[in-house]
Structures are given as structure tokens and as C-alpha cells.
């Protein structure tokens, strides 16, 4: 066969077939994977959407304080399909966060961070951190009122660090207030450094996944029972079994995606905030500053700290609590002392705290999206505590609860 001869010519010089088989077509996926396992594949689709639409936006965007806002209007009105490419990018940003939150929740639910997937989890958290930075830097680029003041508020957080804060802040901004200089450096980070880092980290994430193998809803080790070829019994090859699921999911996902992109691009003020339709004005703060929806839980934590402790200002402590709320996920593999992985076999406390965590996250998300009142601040304080209790009490409740027996092999319901 001619094709085979050509292919083997390549394979002798570059391991094309072997790589495709190892990482794609013959990758053993557990047979009991469910809908929660789709978010990862969907994020690869969103990554491609973001890279493509981002590069195309770049062809007409002008990264200067004078030209940025006008160039967005130019893209929206005068560039052919410019509106669509921009809405693709803004919708993609929200979709990325929605999917990564689902993906993280899946990992927490099925204990996917437990041994031997600790590094997989940590690397995955790095992609989340990079996404947060990408979201923030990208939000500043249209140079609307919310862009400007969000940058001002978020960067000012660094100014709260004792002793070095003020100098650090000036260094980060490159100016004495947010200015075109700041815009230019955030632009460079958003379009070059952070995407490069994101792609590299996602590559490492997938590499680590393919080394340890996928977890599954039962949290059992599928590698324990293998057939005579060394293929785990409770798995199926990615092609054609998994790819068909994923393709179907991608189809459904794209329907939702297009619905928002075409009919609801500002998402009721959540995907694109209305204040950002006004050009940046360094002398006037908008009446109501809200971050994009995907940061609101952490914004609520920031605002919840209204009292100084041990001579540290409330402002600095708020920053610390917010950063800790994002960073604490890293510690999860070492906080969980449970002998079982999946929530299906964990005890009642683990279930309770997981529900409490999700509720806290959602309620904080709501509180961070509305203006603060004394009652709301009090609620934010309560739910900040419950948010952290999921993590900080985990070494206790996961160790002393009664778990159900875990089957040897996966169960198909």
C-alpha cells in the first residue's frame, strides 16, 4: 500500500503514528465517564476559538490610550464581521470560565486531585490562574470606563502590601495612575506572554493526564485489571468511542455558544458590562464597579474584610483573603485524608461540605455582583468563612467520617 509506505517513511523519522495512538486514538478512557468529563474537551475548542478570534481582533485593534476605545467601535461597526469576531471573543472568555469552574468541580466531586493526580491538579490550577490573568488583562484593552477603573482597583490591591506596596504599584503601572503605558504592557501580556504560557501549561496538563490516566466517577483505579495486551479492562479507546461523545457535546455546546454570541452578546450585562460602552475617563469613577461574573465570588471576599487585624489594614487583609481563596485549591490534594476518592463513596460530612462550598461560591458570586450594604457585607463574611471551611476542615472531616466500601471495578448503572 502506497499510503502505508509514505506513513512509514515519516514514522521512521518522526513518531507521528505512535504519538497519535498514544495520546489520541488509543488513549484508554474509563467506560463510566459521564457528562462532567466533557468540559475538558470543550475547553480545547474554546481555546481554539479564543486564539483565532483574538488574532483576528488584533488585526484591527489599536493598543493606545487614544485609539483603543475608538478601534473597538471601528471593529464593531466598520470591519466586516468585526462585531462577530469580537462577540466570539467575549463569549469565549465567559465560556472558558464557566467550563473551567465545572471542570474543577468535577475534580473536587470525584477526588481527581488525589494520588497520583496531585500534579495534574496543580498544573490545572495554573491554567485557571493564567485564565484569570488573561481575563483581567483582556478586559482592560477596550479602554472603556469599566476597563479603566477595574484596572485601577485591581492594581491598587498591590499597593496595599506593607512597606513595598506603593513602589510596587508604580512599577506595575509604569505610571502614577493607570495610563496608556499600563494599557500597552497589559496588551503585550494579553496577546503574547499569557497565551504562550497558557498553551504550554495546558500541554503539560495533558501530558500529566496521559501519564497517570483519567480518573472516573467511581474513583476506582482502572489500571488494576488489564487484559492480555495490557489495556485496562474498564476502559475504551478514545477513538471512536469517546470522540463521538465529545463531538456530540461540542455540537450542543456550540448551539448555546452561538445563541449567546448572536442574540445575547452582552449577557444581560454579565458578559459585557454596560458601563464599558463609555470611553475611559481618569477623572470620573462609575457609580457602581463590578467585575466580570467569573471574578465576583473573590471580589465579594475582598469587600467582606472591613476590619483591620494585628495592625494590618482591612484593605491588605481583603487582598490576602481574596488571593488565598484562589490559591487554596492547590492544597486540596494534601488536605483530603479520605481513603476513597469519589463523593459516591465518601461519608456524609464530605457531601455536606461540598454542597456548602458550592452554595458559598454561588452566593458570594451573587454578592460580588451587587453593590454592598451592611447586611450583604455581613453575609459575605459568613460565606467567606464557609467557603474556607470546606478546605480547612477537610483534614478532619475527611479522616474521621465513615465511607462506603469502594468496588474493585467500575459500576455501570
Amino acid at each position, binding site marked *: 500500500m502506497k499510503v502505508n509506505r509514505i506513513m512509514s517513511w515519516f514514522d521512521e523519522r518522526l513518531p507521528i503514528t505512535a504519538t497519535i495512538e498514544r495520546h489520541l486514538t488509543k488513549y484508554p478512557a474509563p467506560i463510566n465517564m459521564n457528562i462532567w468529563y466533557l468540559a475538558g474537551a470543550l475547553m480545547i475548542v474554546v481555546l481554539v476559538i479564543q486564539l483565532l478570534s483574538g488574532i483576528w481582533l488584533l488585526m484591527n485593534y489599536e493598543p493606545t490610550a487614544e485609539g483603543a476605545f475608538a478601534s473597538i467601535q471601528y471593529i464593531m461597526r466598520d470591519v466586516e464581521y468585526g462585531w462577530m469576531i469580537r462577540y466570539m471573543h467575549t463569549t469565549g472568555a465567559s465560556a472558558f470560565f464557566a467550563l473551567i469552574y465545572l471542570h474543577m468541580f468535577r475534580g473536587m466531586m470525584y477526588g481527581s486531585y488525589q494520588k497520583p493526580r496531585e500534579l495534574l491538579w496543580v498544573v490545572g490550577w495554573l491554567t485557571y490562574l493564567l485564565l484569570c490573568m488573561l481575563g483581567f488583562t483582556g478586559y482592560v484593552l477596550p479602554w472603556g470606563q469599566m476597563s479603566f*477603573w477595574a484596572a*485601577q*482597583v485591581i*492594581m*491598587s*490591591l498591590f*499597593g496595599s502590601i506593607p512597606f513595598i506596596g506603593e513602589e510596587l504599584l*508604580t*512599577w*506595575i503601572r*509604569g*505610571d*502614577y*495612575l*493607570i*495610563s496608556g*503605558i499600563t494599557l500597552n*504592557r497589559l496588551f503585550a501580556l494579553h496577546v503574547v506572554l499569557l497565551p504562550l504560557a497558557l498553551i504550554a501549561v495546558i500541554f503539560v496538563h495533558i501530558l500529566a493526564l496521559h501519564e497517570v490516566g483519567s480518573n472516573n466517577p467511581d474513583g476506582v483505579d482502572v489500571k488494576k485489571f488489564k487484559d492480555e495486551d495490557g489495556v485496562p479492562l474498564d476502559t475504551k479507546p478514545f477513538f471512536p468511542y469517546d470522540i463521538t461523545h465529545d463531538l456530540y457535546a461540542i455540537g450542543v455546546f456550540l448551539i448555546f455558544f452561538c445563541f449567546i454570541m448572536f442574540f445575547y452578546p452582552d449577557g444581560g450585562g454579565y458578559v459585557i458590562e454596560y458601563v464599558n460602552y463609555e470611553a475611559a475617563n*481618569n*477623572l*470620573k*469613577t*462609575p*457609580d*457602581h*464597579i463590578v467585575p466580570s461574573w467569573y471574578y465576583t465570588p473573590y471580589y465579594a471576599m475582598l*469587600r467582606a474584610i*472591613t476590619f*483591620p487585624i494585628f495592625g494590618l*489594614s*482591612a*484593605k491588605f487583609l*481583603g487582598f490576602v483573603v481574596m488571593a488565598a481563596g484562589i490559591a487554596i485549591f492547590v492544597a486540596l490534594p494534601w488536605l483530603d485524608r479520605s481513603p476513597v476518592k469519589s463523593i459516591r463513596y465518601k461519608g456524609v460530612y464530605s457531601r455536606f461540605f461540598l454542597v456548602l462550598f458550592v452554595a458559598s461560591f454561588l452566593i458570594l458570586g451573587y454578592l460580588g455582583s451587587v453593590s*454592598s450594604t451592611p447586611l450583604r457585607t455581613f453575609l459575605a463574611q459568613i460565606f467567606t468563612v464557609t467557603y474556607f471551611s470546606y478546605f480547612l476542615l477537610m483534614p478532619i472531616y475527611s479522616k474521621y467520617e465513615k465511607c462506603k466500601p469502594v468496588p474493585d471495578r467500575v459500576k455501570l448503572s
Partner: protein
Amino acid sequence: MVQPKSPPNPGRRKFLINATTVVGAGAIAGAAVPFLGSWNPSAKAEAAGAPAKADISKLTPGEMIVVEWRGMPIYVVRHSEESLALINENLSRLSDPDSLNDQQPEYAKNNLRARKKGISVLSAVCTHLGCAPKFYPQLGTTEFDSNWQGGFFCPCHGSKFDLAGRVYAGVPAPDNLPVPPHYYESETILVIGEDGEAT
């Protein structure tokens, strides 16, 4: 070639490895300097920090103007007789009524935080997270305070300041609004950004 089990001169090898590591680390640190340094404010940004002048002859009592200095809004308020009489009646609600924290030049360290009686020059960058507080000169009930004595309210996170820029207690902002360096070139010309001669 077969590697000898223990290479000769282990001490020298170790020294060479360590020396190379140290030199390499030094080179990386040195190479980082231009990259980190280039994030400092450029000469142009520093030049834009030059003093700003404002004509205050048309500023009537109770009014405020916004002057831009270093890209920051600077509020210049001429107080009315009425608010001047009230300005130090409210000290118990303030967090730093005597301006002990270093948020003003020496010449503004008085009970009006002003170089010239009746005129406040304040940096309108909230000491919480940098929003521009709004000017609410009216007295009485406002949407955020039931007994408002006039001053500034930050819409972002609800910090309150009195007319002299002093922060209220129990709000997120930790400090009084800074008084930028300024002096009066004449009766009507205010210069922001320089201390001028001592008076």
C-alpha cells in the same frame, strides 16, 4: 567511550560546577535588570508628572473644581463659611481627625488640612482601591448617611471622607485623602505638584 566510575579530581569538578552555577545565576540576574527596569515610569511619564496650574479666582464658596495632575484627579474645594464652621464638629466619627498619618505635607498638617484657609486641595484617589470619591457638599440625609456633614463618598466600596478629606471610621479606606504638594503662586493661581517656598 566508557565513563570512569569516579571521574578524577572530584573537588575541582565540584568547584567548577558551583562556579558555573553562580556565574550563570549572576548573569540571569543581570539580564533581568533591563527587563524589570523597563517597567518603571518612563522619562515621558515622569515629565507628565510636572506641576499643574489652576486658576481659582472663579471658584465660589461651596464649589469644587477638578484639576488633572499626573493623570490623577485633584479636587480643589472652596469651603463656604457655613461648612467651615461645621468642619471640626464631627471629629468623633473620623478615623484620623488630627492627620497623624503621613498623608499631607507639613504645611497642611493642621485642623483644616489646608495651606490656605478655606481651600482644600485633595488627591481624589480613594485610599482604598483608587476610585474617585464623589463630592457631596449638602448636609443632612443622603442615601449613604443619615446625618451627613458634607464631604466625599466613594461609590466603589462606600468609603466616606469629610470636607477636609479625612476618612470616617468603619469604612474600607484606611487613610485620609492625600493632600498633594501645592502652593499659591498668587492669590488666584494654585500650583499643584510643587511645595514652593516655605511660608
